[in-house]
């Protein structure tokens, strides 16, 4: 299945956006609030009309089709459950609207409720449900219609933090089980990382970068994408061309695997890509020694800053870069370590 969208929105909410989604994948549109991602989703759903452009579903042009005739269903951010109907009737709504017989409806509804572990809740009303339960009802209500594409608008935003990981896991396994194409919209890069096969990063109505999650995350195209995906200022480092293959950074001179097109710019090194070792060597290309500061355990491993001494950044604080390692590493605050920049992992930013 392919969705190809190319549209101008009113007031340039969307500016010539073009996307293609593969069947059976989870595709995420990631971006800050106001970037147009929700509008894009609504256009695919049929809830808004693009000024220009087409939406193709499996080579069918559905641009002119109203939402009620698109085999696409939406899970709204606020779930939009029908308050006057119980869970069963909420879930059955789409089936009833399509004219299925009651016994068929019964079977399908109970099946999906079971898949979503909601059996027994069918008689409840929305106001009697918890946030997580409401989300499942919204999912059930959409999925019971076996749509070709399921659209999710910020699915985790209304949930408590501790539920999110669990829901993420469940969504992943649900999608794998059903095989439905999911298209998700979010501003949470973590969510995008955990759930999606491919993603697109949007900003101010335009798609800035897209590709598989792995590709986009490991090699963000520019500073905006890098920062949006979680890179902090410390890991975006100025680099200047020296000559030959070498570039100068405040930490050390580096050599890239993929040379940038500029002579002066910024590079990104993800914290977990820095190779840190308690054994100290001598400074050289892609290598410097520094001191560990602000070490703490982040739940899975260690996060810390490595300060290069001497060397101050413009703010008077020690020049540092953030690093992350597994918890097995035995290091402590104040310890001197050697830091290596693997050439393959240095990402030039445009």
């Amino acid at each position: 299945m392919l969705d190809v969208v190319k549209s101008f929105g009113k007031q340039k909410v969307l500016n010539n956006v073009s996307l293609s989604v593969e069947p059976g994948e989870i595709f995420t549109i990631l971006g800050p609030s106001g970037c147009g991602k929700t509008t894009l989703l609504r256009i695919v759903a049929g809830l808004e009309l693009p000024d220009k452009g087409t939406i193709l579903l499996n080579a069918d042009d559905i641009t002119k089709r109203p939402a009620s005739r698109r085999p696409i269903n939406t899970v709204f951010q606020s779930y939009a459950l029908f308050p006057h109907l119980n869970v069963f009737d909420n879930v059955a709504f789409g089936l009833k609207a399509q004219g299925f017989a009651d016994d068929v409806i019964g079977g399908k509804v109970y099946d999906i409720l079971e898949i979503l572990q909601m059996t027994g809740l069918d008689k409840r009303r929305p106001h009697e449900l918890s946030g997580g339960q409401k989300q499942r009802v919204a999912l059930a209500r959409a999925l019971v219609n076996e749509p070709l594409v399921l659209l999710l608008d910020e699915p985790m935003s209304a949930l408590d933090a501790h539920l999110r990981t669990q829901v993420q896991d469940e969504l992943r396994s649900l999608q794998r089980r059903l095989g439905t194409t999911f298209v998700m919209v979010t501003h949470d890069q973590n969510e995008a990382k955990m759930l999606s096969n491919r993603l697109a990063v949007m900003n101010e109505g335009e798609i800035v970068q897209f590709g598989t999650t792995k590709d986009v995350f490991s090699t963000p195209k520019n500073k905006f994408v890098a920062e949006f995906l979680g890179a902090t200022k410390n890991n975006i480092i100025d680099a200047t061309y020296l000559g030959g293959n070498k570039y100068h950074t405040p930490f050390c001179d580096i050599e890239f695997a993929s040379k940038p097109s500029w002579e002066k710019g910024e590079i990104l090194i993800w914290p977990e890509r820095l190779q840190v070792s308690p054994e100290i060597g001598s400074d050289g290309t892609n290598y410097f020694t520094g001191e560990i500061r602000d070490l703490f355990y982040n739940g899975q491993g260690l996060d810390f800053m490595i300060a290069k001494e001497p060397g101050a950044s413009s703010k008077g604080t020690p020049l540092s870069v953030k690093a992350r390692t597994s918890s097995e590493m035995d290091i402590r605050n104040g310890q001197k370590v050697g830091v290596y920049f693997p050439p393959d992992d240095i990402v030039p930013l445009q």
Partner: protein
Amino acid sequence: MAETKFDKDMAKTSSAEPDRDGVLADASDKILVWRGEMTSFKSLRTRALALSAPPLVWLTVLLAIPCVLLVGLSFLTRGQYGEIVYVPTFENIKRLAGFGLFGWNANFVLILLRSFVVAGITTILCIALAYPLTFHIATRPGRSRVFWLILIIIPFWTNVVVRAYAWLLILGPHMPPARLAAWLGLINEGGSLYPGSLAVYLGMVSTFLPFMALPLYASVERLNWEIIEAAKDLYGQRLQIFTQAILPQTRPGLAVGVIVTFVPAMATFVITDILGGAKTMLIGNLIQQQFAQAWDWPFGAALSSTLMLMTLICLAIFKRRQDEDPQGSILNRF
């Protein structure tokens, strides 16, 4: 596939470029998605019109047009037997202004003025009572509050005739209030407290208090008490606390209350009819007289038109002041 109207309209939508053409495609044909439905402005509006046309027509034919005709009727003459003679005249207006058969008589103008005054005094009395009442309710805990509100709302809906004549009972000759007044020498022995201003005002205030209290309560409920506490620190006198801290915050509700009290009070008929006499005649009573007894439709129409004008003036003043809270009608409670 044949090109449908939808396709044509979609084409219009997609290709509308005002800069190039200078003229946009007809906006009403424009396709839009409205609350999830893909349709055109025209289609939506036609549907809406189909629904709202019958009631609108009803209201126009039975309310709007007759009101306009009333104004016209004011300028016609009354025939000898009460029929309408289609001879235009200013007679009715002149009569209103006091130029009667026997020279200038301020009677009718007095009645008009009295309507204003009575309505005004009623409104002020209602305000005086409504503020403490609403404050008291606002300080009640949840259930008690609901209880009080329901108690205030019920009289709002009950029959005016019953509530008015009940005061006849209360103010009757052998009842305590009248006895007390007689003992104090205010009235004759065995007399009653009606008809008279006291009776009328008692009837008016007891009828219109809910009209004032309910909208006011809507504002009082949302009061920011901190501002009042701060005012208490700043100002010594209670009056200043009121005008600086309470009045500004309650202005929206107060405004609605005033309008909903003053206008009907001005036009009241039943209360003054039952509890008042010749000395407390209001414009409502005068109008009723023309239609029920004197059978002078043109004059009655002139009076009604005047009342309409007075109402419109009050509403215009109200609209001018209503820049703050567009709370509109009491019925927003529902």
